[in-house]
């Protein structure tokens, strides 16, 4: 019980199997408000798999993930209202404009953002001028930025799970994302991310999970 109360996100003794092969086992991770965890490991070590387990997308082969003391499977959409997961597929639809994309994905996370707020979120990522363009014409980095603009709207969501958020971004974009992450942590949010790039993020409480080779 005490552990439940102290940690918002509490992952205990997780193990993951892929194609009959055990990727990792006995991985534990616990976050309080303001906590930041960085997942490290070589290519293929299981960082993405771990993040998907934390997001409730994949079932762990062993162990369990608790959010506010409850098991993930039992809370379903309740968790979705408090957690933002960004995988490496940007979830940006070619057929919609950049602004429409952002608006719909914010609503999907339960955030009713006005047009102005969407605009400002895009500006926070430096792509305000692209808002009316069809997402089809975006460059690789612009597409990632369009996906990351969700972060600027996700202020009410306490937990962010980000998979390689800095890949394909230029320096300017990296520092913008970093600023968003630090602001999130400063206001008591929690953040788990994977990144091969060494981007320092200031947090009161940082932990590192190393999945090895």
């Amino acid at each position, binding site marked *: 019980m005490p552990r439940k109360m102290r940690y918002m996100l509490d992952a205990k003794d997780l193990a993951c199997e892929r194609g*009959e*092969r055990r990727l990792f086992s006995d991985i534990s991770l616990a976050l309080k408000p303001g906590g930041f965890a960085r997942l490290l490991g070589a290519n293929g070590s299981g960082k993405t798999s771990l993040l998907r387990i934390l997001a409730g997308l994949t079932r762990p082969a062993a162990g369990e993930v608790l959010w506010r003391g409850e098991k993930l499977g039992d809370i379903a959409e309740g968790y979705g209202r408090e957690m933002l997961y960004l995988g490496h597929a940007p979830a940006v639809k070619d057929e919609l404009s950049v602004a429409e994309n952002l608006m719909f994905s914010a609503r999907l996370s339960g955030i009713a953002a006005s047009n102005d707020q969407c605009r400002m979120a895009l500006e926070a990522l430096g792509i305000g001028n692209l808002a009316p363009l069809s997402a089809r014409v975006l460059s690789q980095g612009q597409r990632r930025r369009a996906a990351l603009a969700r972060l600027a709207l996700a202020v009410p969501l306490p937990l962010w799970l980000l998979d390689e958020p800095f890949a394909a971004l230029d320096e300017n974009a990296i520092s913008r994302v970093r600023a968003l992450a630090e602001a999130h942590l400063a206001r008591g949010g929690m953040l788990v991310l994977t990144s091969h790039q060494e981007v320092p993020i200031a947090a009161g409480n940082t932990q590192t999970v190393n999945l090895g080779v």
Partner: protein
Amino acid sequence: MFSNLFNFASPQAFYPVAGRMISWFGWSAALLGVAGLYIAFFVAPTDATQGESYRIIFIHVPAAWMSMFLYLVMAGWAGLGLVLNTRLSGMMASALAPTGAMFTVVALVTGLLWGKPTWGTYWVWDARLTSELFLLFLYLGFMALKEAIDDPQRADRAGAILALVGVVNIPIIYFSVQWWNTLHQGASVSLTRAPSMAATMLAGMLVMALAAWMYSIAVSLARVRAIIVAREQDAAWVRSGTR
């Protein structure tokens, strides 16, 4: 809390048990089969209207029964696996499918052969025949789907969903003769009514049905053992030769 109750559901525990059971069921199947065929071809009298051709019934009806019954069993295992997440269930479902498909084919083929002398044609598009054909497609779809997915656990769960949805076809086959008026005859073996056929015929059919049952169990157990070995290649107990 189910972990004790379903302890036997671990492939490791099941493997040797299955090994011991196979020969029992195999021999029973052989004996019953011989007895059934003997009744069918030497004891049962020639039919007044259909002559000798009616003897197909001794294969046709048990095969048709098994084709439906095995589907239900397969779907049952699949559903169990989906709910309780036991590994063995998916393997059992995989092991049952080919046998079920085989009996479906037998029912279809014997029906075709029987149709020519009795109805004057091999095939009519009537509801019973068609729904039985679609049972075959369901079996094939189940196997194709499992085959198409690399990850065995994912394949099990996807297959289970399909198998459960397909269960609706079984009542359609069974009641089709009542719901639509068709060429195919209705049920003559019933638990509630006195059987309308000769006692020897009934006995022959029941013995053949039992044989089919034993055969299905034996073959499925053998197949599930093969699947266990293939899937658990990495698991230590297979490599160390405890089997």
